[in-house]
């Protein structure tokens, strides 16, 4: 069992590498398709940067050669250098800004997953009674209101709260302390939490009416134990399978939250890079994000195997 599990992980990793290669290729050719020579427009490009870039990317050579150079650089873990900032490497940018996004994202994922499982289970148990109605109403709101509106409203709320107390209870924007992270993480996780709540609810409803829960009742197992031992574990399984895509949603959703709350994360930097058309940073960040997401999906898959014995055996 052990060794087959390692083979499974290895297989997924090889698949993952191929996927990252595909992402890198798509990125390269998408950016190569940009009309006009990106180096020819005068967007804050100094001669020094220009010379650097030409040497580094072989921009005077044919496309396929450039593609080869690009892949070679990627293999060495080099994501390139900035177009607009002299001597700034994309790796440095990611090193500086990604931890911020990661902390925010992890908090949001924890918030979303814990909340989704809890509320989902609750609504299923109280099906068609008032806790169900109240929570599902909020969930529908959470799904229907765009994250930037939620972000704006929560900022407005913070301004009013701070105004009410006359001091800064929670900072409205910026980064630094745990207090700075709290509200943005909640806003970021809210949409995913609503989605997971719905998923958990329907999964839980299916489990509640399943044959094996009926068996447990026929055995005389008390409701609390049925919930803990029979319902929760089985109902969580579908939630875990969508955790990978959810992480992706939260990661990119971070762009807006970082923008609105003025958080110096990679998402905000990416949006800036796009606005300045800093091509190499855009490419580097995209490939980095893509690789990160592929990796997260693999992690979730392996995690799933540990929880579901049926999948574990297939390793």
């Amino acid at each position: 069992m052990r060794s087959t599990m390692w083979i499974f992980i290895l297989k997924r990793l090889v698949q993952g590498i191929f996927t990252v290669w595909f992402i890198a290729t798509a990125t390269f050719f998408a950016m190569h398709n940009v009309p006009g020579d990106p180096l020819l427009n005068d967007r804050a490009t100094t001669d020094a940067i220009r010379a650097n870039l030409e040497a580094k990317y072989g921009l005077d050579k044919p496309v396929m050669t450039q593609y080869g150079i690009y892949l070679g650089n990627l293999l060495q873990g080099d994501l390139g250098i900035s177009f607009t900032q002299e001597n700034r490497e994309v790796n440095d940018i990611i090193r500086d800004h990604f931890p911020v996004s990661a902390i925010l994202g992890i908090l949001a994922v924890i918030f979303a997953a814990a909340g989704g499982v809890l509320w989902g289970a609750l609504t299923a148990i109280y099906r068609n009674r008032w806790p169900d109605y109240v929570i599902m109403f909020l969930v529908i709101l959470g799904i229907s209101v765009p994250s930037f509106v939620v972000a704006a409203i929560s900022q407005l709320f913070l301004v009013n709260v701070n105004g009410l107390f006359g001091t800064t209870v929670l900072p409205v924007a910026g980064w630094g302390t745990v207090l700075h992270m709290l509200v943005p993480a909640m806003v970021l996780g809210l949409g995913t939490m609503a989605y997971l709540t719905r998923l958990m609810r329907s999964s839980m409803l299916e489990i509640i009416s399943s044959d094996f829960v009926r068996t447990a009742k026929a055995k005389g197992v008390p409701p609390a134990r049925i919930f803990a031992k029979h319902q929760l574990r089985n109902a969580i399984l579908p939630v875990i399978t969508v955790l990978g895509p959810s992480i992706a949603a939260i990661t990119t959703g971070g762009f807006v939250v970082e923008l609105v709350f003025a958080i110096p994360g990679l998402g905000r930097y990416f949006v800036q890079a796009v606005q300045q058309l800093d091509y190499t940073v855009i490419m580097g960040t995209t490939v980095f994000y893509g690789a990160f997401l592929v990796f997260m999906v693999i992690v979730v898959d392996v995690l799933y195997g540990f929880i579901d014995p049926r999948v574990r055996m297939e390793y």
Partner: protein
Amino acid sequence: MTELLSADFRPLEAGQEIHGISRPSQSYWQDAWARLKTNKRALASLYLVIGLILFTVAGPWVWSVDPAQQDLDQISRPPGSERSALIVADYAPWDTEGLRFGEGLTLVGEATTQSVRLKWDALPGANGHRVYRNIFPVGPERSYGIPRAEFFDNSVVTFEDRLDLKVLTYYYVLVPLGPRGELLDNYEVIEVDVHRVTTVLEAIDQGLIEESSNLQIGDALNLDWHPLGTDYLGRDMLARLMAGARVSLFIGIGAPFLFVLFGVIYGSIAGFVGGRVDQLMMRFADFVVALPFLLFMILFKISFGIGPGESGVFPMLVAMVVLMWPATSRLVRGQILQIREQGYIHASQLLGAPRRYLILRHMIPNTLGVVLVTITFAIPSAIFTEAFLSFIGMGVAPPTPSWGSMSNEGIKTMLTTPHELIFPALFISITVLAFNLLGDGLRDALDARMRNQE
């Protein structure tokens, strides 16, 4: 118990109607429609969707205001705000001769959108003054607002503000300056209610009155009516919301139809042909799924490039189709593989049904429900994507309005004129809500497993 007659024991006749044996059978779609009709939420959202489409398509006939036209007299006006304006004389420079002082910071004359005139007495310890204008009271954090003027001379004790005055309550703050121009701790504040005025010339200029009309100074005049107010450039919100709806719904409904169509074709081919082709096609779909969606939307937008005067709607549509089809294709392929193994297909084949009949009679009707539900759920996500991209400035290019880009513009003035954010956000939310609830209802209604349950 009543007496039983021997007639009661006669045998039943063939064909005689038997009480309480069965209920009328319904076709799949009849049944689905009946179930949808009992679902109040789904029905309400269906009406809502129809209403939204009417708003988008028929709205511009009813409210034929040009969404690009700027009403400079009414900038960032919330709905239902006062729109009468007093006719005043043309602006004349302020003659400060003969003003009497000694009353502290006071307003001279009426505060109008033409000008606000202030006078004051030099504050204790002042070497000069700075005047701020704010739309909020100063508060404990001592936010003064935007600096409007600075005088390094105690002899200047008057200030006339003519900058972009709106019909608001302003707080003018007077702060004394120290010897080196630093702000001193004390300050004086005055609350000023600004009234709207206009001149005859301006009114004629904007077509509010005829040139021949005989209006006198002191008469009142009604400005253009904007039922939902105006935005930061004085454009009519209702007209812009309608124009924005066209863009948002075009992308929101058009893109899902296109990529679901593509997904259905791709998925059916893979499902039908099967074998190595299927493997290859699905592996490719896996790759596309792995692309970080929003990043590639942005990437494609850059890569397409948007020339001057283009709205960017078309590139966004293409990018969505390119990136969003795999989910549908997987679903349809799965359905087809599943249906192909069903007993009724084998039975039909045994009876000699041609391939075309199998596809038309069994495959398509049995996948249609799933596809319909997929489209319904794809619409809100497409609308969200458009809004998200436009919000971070990567969507449709200004001046083309969309609900997302309107929200983007509105969020900047969220604190002072929230209606500029609230209206587009509300439209996005209601549309997404309606399609989500409709999707839920459709799924429940079309899911055959749900029949005879609950």
